[in-house]
């Protein structure tokens, strides 16, 4: 057997509190991981991984059924496992007494199950979030909301998809790399959820060009892993007021995108700051778009 040289991958850095570790860190070389792999027991189809996953991410905290609090939309059968659209919506209007602080998106069967953590700023008025994820095997996809009183609520869907993380996702590789860091921000004016005031609440969609390499795609001929290189943090502000922060990892699709509803606090510019796993920083700012007939 010819041995192949494996390039050391970038580390997944840890973010957030140790209890609710948003992203799991891996501070060891691939050589050690391989040694581990020879003795590891893979999770078999049918094993429920959630109980252990839950303890890892949320410790012993109680997670309540969240169907009255929020909803999660995902296709039952994904068209493209590397590009699965999901939408999270609040089911009750947010009030100062009772609102969502963070939403953790978990894909049970993915190599890195915590796909993203959305941190909603207190006055952001966010009622809806959409993004696109990679799904590696038939899996439960879960949205766990943490309320401002600390309670946890969960909703989930089962999605049939496979190979999203390790399958070749990029149709146009050269373009993805050449345009890395380019961004677009679309602004929509429509009200989205019950209780929102039309004209006040609006939606925006941020698009970021980035290959979001999972580090699990291998060049078969040379045995080299494509270096993991992905968007790690997205910060969206209006002026200096934070709207939304997102911690991400390899489960987000290539060209990560997030669409969200929010209540503007002013007419100041929308500012975005993106940091990727190699420490590259991308920034963008966009004038606040006045409501007009064109975009109502």
């Amino acid at each position, binding site marked *: 057997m010819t041995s192949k040289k494996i390039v050391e991958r970038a580390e997944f850095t840890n973010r957030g509190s140790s209890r609710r570790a948003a992203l799991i860190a891996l501070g060891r070389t691939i050589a050690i991981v391989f040694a581990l792999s020879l003795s590891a027991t893979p999770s078999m189809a049918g094993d429920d991984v959630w109980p252990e996953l839950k303890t890892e991410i949320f410790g012993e905290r109680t997670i309540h059924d969240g169907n009255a609090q929020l909803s999660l939309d995902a296709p039952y059968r994904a068209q493209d496992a590397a590009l699965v659209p999901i939408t999270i919506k609040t089911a009750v209007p947010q009030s100062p007494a009772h609102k969502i602080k963070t939403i953790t998106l978990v894909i049970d069967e993915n190599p890195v199950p915590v796909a993203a953590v959305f941190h909603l700023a207190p006055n952001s008025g966010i009622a809806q979030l959409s993004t696109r994820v990679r799904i590696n095997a038939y899996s439960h996809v879960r949205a766990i909301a943490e309320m401002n009183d600390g309670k946890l609520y969960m909703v989930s869907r089962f999605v049939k998809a496979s190979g999203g993380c390790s399958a070749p996702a990029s*149709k146009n590789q050269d373009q993805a790399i050449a345009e890395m860091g380019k961004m677009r921000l679309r602004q929509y004016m429509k009200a989205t959820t019950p209780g929102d005031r039309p004209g006040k609440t609006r939606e925006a969609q941020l698009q970021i060009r980035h290959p979001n390499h999972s580090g699990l795609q291998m060049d078969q001929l040379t045995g080299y892993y494509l270096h993991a290189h992905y968007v790690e943090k997205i910060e969206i502000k209006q002026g200096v007021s934070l709207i939304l922060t997102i911690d991400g990892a390899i489960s987000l699709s290539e060209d990560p995108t997030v669409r969200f509803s929010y209540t503007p606090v002013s007419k100041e510019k929308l500012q975005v700051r993106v940091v990727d796993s190699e420490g590259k920083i991308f920034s963008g700012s966009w004038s606040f778009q006045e409501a007009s007939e064109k975009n109502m």
Partner: protein
Amino acid sequence: MLASRTTEIRLAFAFFLSAASIWSISLLVTNATAGQTMSCGQGVGIAPAKVDEIAPGVYIRQGVHALMTAANRGAIANIGFVVGRDAVAVIDTGGSACGGARLRAAIVARTGLPIRYVINTHVHPDHIFGNAAFLADKPEFIGHHRLARALAMRGAYYINVNRERMGARLLEGTKIVRPTKSVFDTLTLDLGDRKLVLTANETAHTDHDLTVFDQKTATLWTGDLLFREHLPVVDGSLLGWLRVIDKLALLKVAWAIPGHGSVAGNWPDALAPQRRYLTTLANDLRKFIETGRTMSEAVADAAQSEKANWRLFNEFNSRNATAGFAELEWE
């Protein structure tokens, strides 16, 4: 930094699978030096593929309009060969080792000339899985300059996925064969008083589409740059494909051999249905994007007006819409 046990195991397993792939691929990947016997069916003699001579010296084995299955042995793409005075060129080799062997048997039944070139129009398994049947002929394996990368990235994945779908028996003997020659712009092959012009295209169906033009009969092998009857499948760039269609339309072509579907004698009109589908898809998607609709909404509705015009519409349209939506968001 704390690494959780489950994630360690999960990642380790993912690497283990990838490692297993490396080890198996190191056996499977070859530089076209090893000749190996392979089974085809139950070990009885290899029945030659049924081929049609659509122009003097131009032979095609027509594919069926279906997904790759054990029943159809992955024979869903059009493949074939061209016979010159001195040599033979093969254009795509089918969806299984057996399919490649059957194509080769069809060649050998008609000519004793050496098989000098095996040309792959692109990486999809229905076009390349028969390559290993020709290793013993020691031909040049030729592709677009980006084919090698696509094979490197996708080869093992395709073998694993199709082993599940079509069964291990059909995948026996299927090897990923690296190209020995790459086309950067154009390349002319001389089969002896017969020139084939190979052209590397910009990203369209895939990011590495290669076409083959037989000057003697003005026959254009389009690879999957042309689909007829079978819904076109976008695995590269929707907009790029529309540009390439316009370029291809300018060529003087007597016979067009599409990657899927019947041979066409009415160039460039043969391109019209595909152009119409891709344009409709692009325009529908643009409307969804402009009016702030989501990808999920768009994918359910885009290009539904084309449904009755195509085979395998339900299998591929939503997937095309997904890819197209993500692409057009950047327009």
